[in-house]
């Protein structure tokens, strides 16, 4: 009896483990920065080169930090949703990563600008402090400048309602 039952049980266990594994996104790594204070940054303003976009803009209220680049197709896909969020009153700070200034300015001119300000990080140096892996990435920073959530990849309404909206209430 056990001769047949044991391999069958083993097989079923493996199927469950692998089926679970298929649902996991290997790119969605847990960030060690979640629930930690937002790393300081001080970047040149993309649109107004004299100004700075820095971590002083964070805090006081929930703020999104959105890492984007013009070479990144999912950034284009989520752009309209970011504009929607802006219309709904969400403050978004842009983090232009590994990009070309002229292309980035053109992008915002043509597609619209959902950001209160955009920091320019052409070398990705500040991105390393934020553990940026690729664009797009979206961080939720609460009123106390703590990172409450990080999302990898395109941000959609569905993901917003599921992962961000509940945290927004507690981030004030």
């Amino acid at each position: 009896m056990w001769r047949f039952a044991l391999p069958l049980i083993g097989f079923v266990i493996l199927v469950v483990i692998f089926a679970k594994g298929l649902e996991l996104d290997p790119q969605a790594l847990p960030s060690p920065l979640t629930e930690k204070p937002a790393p300081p940054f001080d970047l040149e303003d993309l649109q107004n080169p004299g100004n700075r976009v820095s971590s002083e803009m964070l805090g006081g209220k929930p703020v999104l930090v959105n890492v984007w680049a013009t070479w990144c197709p999912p950034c284009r896909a989520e752009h309209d949703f970011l504009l929607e969020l802006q219309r709904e009153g969400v403050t978004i700070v842009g983090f232009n990563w590994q990009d070309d200034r002229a292309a980035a300015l053109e992008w915002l001119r043509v597609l619209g600008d959902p950001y209160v300000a955009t920091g320019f990080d052409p070398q990705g140096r500040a991105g390393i402090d934020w553990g940026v892996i690729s664009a797009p990435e979206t961080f939720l920073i609460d009123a106390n400048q703590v990172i409450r959530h990080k999302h990898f990849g395109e941000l959609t309404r569905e993901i917003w309602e599921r992962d961000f909206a509940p945290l927004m209430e507690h981030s004030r």
Partner: protein
Amino acid sequence: MTRLLWVLVLCIAAPVYAVDAGKAFEDPVMQARYVAITSEVRCVKCQNEAIRDSNSRIATDLRREVRRLLSEGMSDAEIYDYLVARYGEFVLYRPPAKGKTLFIWLAPGFFLLIGGIVVFRIMKRRFAMPLDEKGA
């Protein structure tokens, strides 16, 4: 013969494909540390490559960062800690054997043990059989 020679030449030429071929440091000790670290740090985007072998944006950035940290005089351990603080233990090809990763470190021995027990039991039964039934 000429064809074979070409194959050999192309084999020798393989390092041409190396991503990070230039020397980062003139000092051979520093260069050796740089090569060792960039071979041990995983590219977080292209996850099955070390940052030494990857030409993705983040790997290029991290190589530049390792170079900067080395020239600032950080020790190897400090550089690993610096990267882990930002990207998590996943960034290390050989994460410390504690917590969640302990299972991964022990798994090969565990499965080898199970396989060994199974093989041992089968062999024992076979040897216990009379000779003429062997292989039946």
